[in-house]
């Protein structure tokens, strides 16, 4: 009973995250506004990061909630460390996601500056208008 339920909830969470990824990918590809593309990009990166955290999750014996990977007794004995290994989650995905969130924020800041620059030069943030302007400039150049 309990393993089936844990498995069902875990799988539903995976499906929800995949659908979030797909919806935001649609937003990046199909919506015309550049700012809307940026909003979709933040949701896209956050969904993939949540997926990494979900892979690092585990359940303890008896389907108990695990604890964060922090040594709380200083100095610890061998017994404390064995207990932590039996109850803690995987710290590696958390460390990787920590850096990924900061990098995605830096990339978003650069893209926001680029969007502002595009608006100052061309007066629009609509991808179709920009493509039209470029085509017109190419025709005039010939």
């Amino acid at each position, binding site marked *: 009973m*309990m393993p089936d*339920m*844990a498995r069902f*909830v*875990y799988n*539903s*969470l995976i499906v*929800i*995250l995949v*659908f*979030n990824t797909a*919806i*935001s990918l*649609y*937003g990046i590809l199909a*919506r*015309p*506004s550049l*700012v*809307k593309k*940026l*909003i*979709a990009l*933040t*949701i896209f990166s*956050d969904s993939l*990061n*949540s997926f990494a*955290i*979900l892979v*690092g*999750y585990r*359940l*303890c014996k*008896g*389907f*108990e*909630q*695990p*604890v*964060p990977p922090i040594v709380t007794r200083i100095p610890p004995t061998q017994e404390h460390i064995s207990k932590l290994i039996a109850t803690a*989650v995987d710290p590696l995905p*958390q460390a990787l*996601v*920590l850096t990924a*969130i*900061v990098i995605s*924020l830096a990339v*978003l*800041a650069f893209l*926001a500056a680029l*969007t*502002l620059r595009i*608006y100052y030069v061309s007066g*629009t*943030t*609509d991808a179709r208008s920009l493509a039209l302007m470029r085509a017109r400039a190419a025709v005039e150049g010939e």
Partner: protein
Amino acid sequence: MTGLVALLLCLIMGVISLIATYLAIVERDLLKALLFSAVQSTAYAFIYYSLAAPDIVLVYIPVAVGLYPLLLLIVIKKTERYERP
């Protein structure tokens, strides 16, 4: 047993984030889309908390609820508020 409760909380927050993501993508008013994206970020912060990742919660709340919306708010204020159909 408590682990199952945490996973169920994740599932509820996941459904909220799914609705918020859909609304954020279809909304034409960019300011409202930004608010829906902040709702999605809050739901994700609850998910991270239930998945025993307090480090990620501490970096995610200032970044995704504070700095993302502020950054995009400045961009929307300086450019256009409505997306053309």
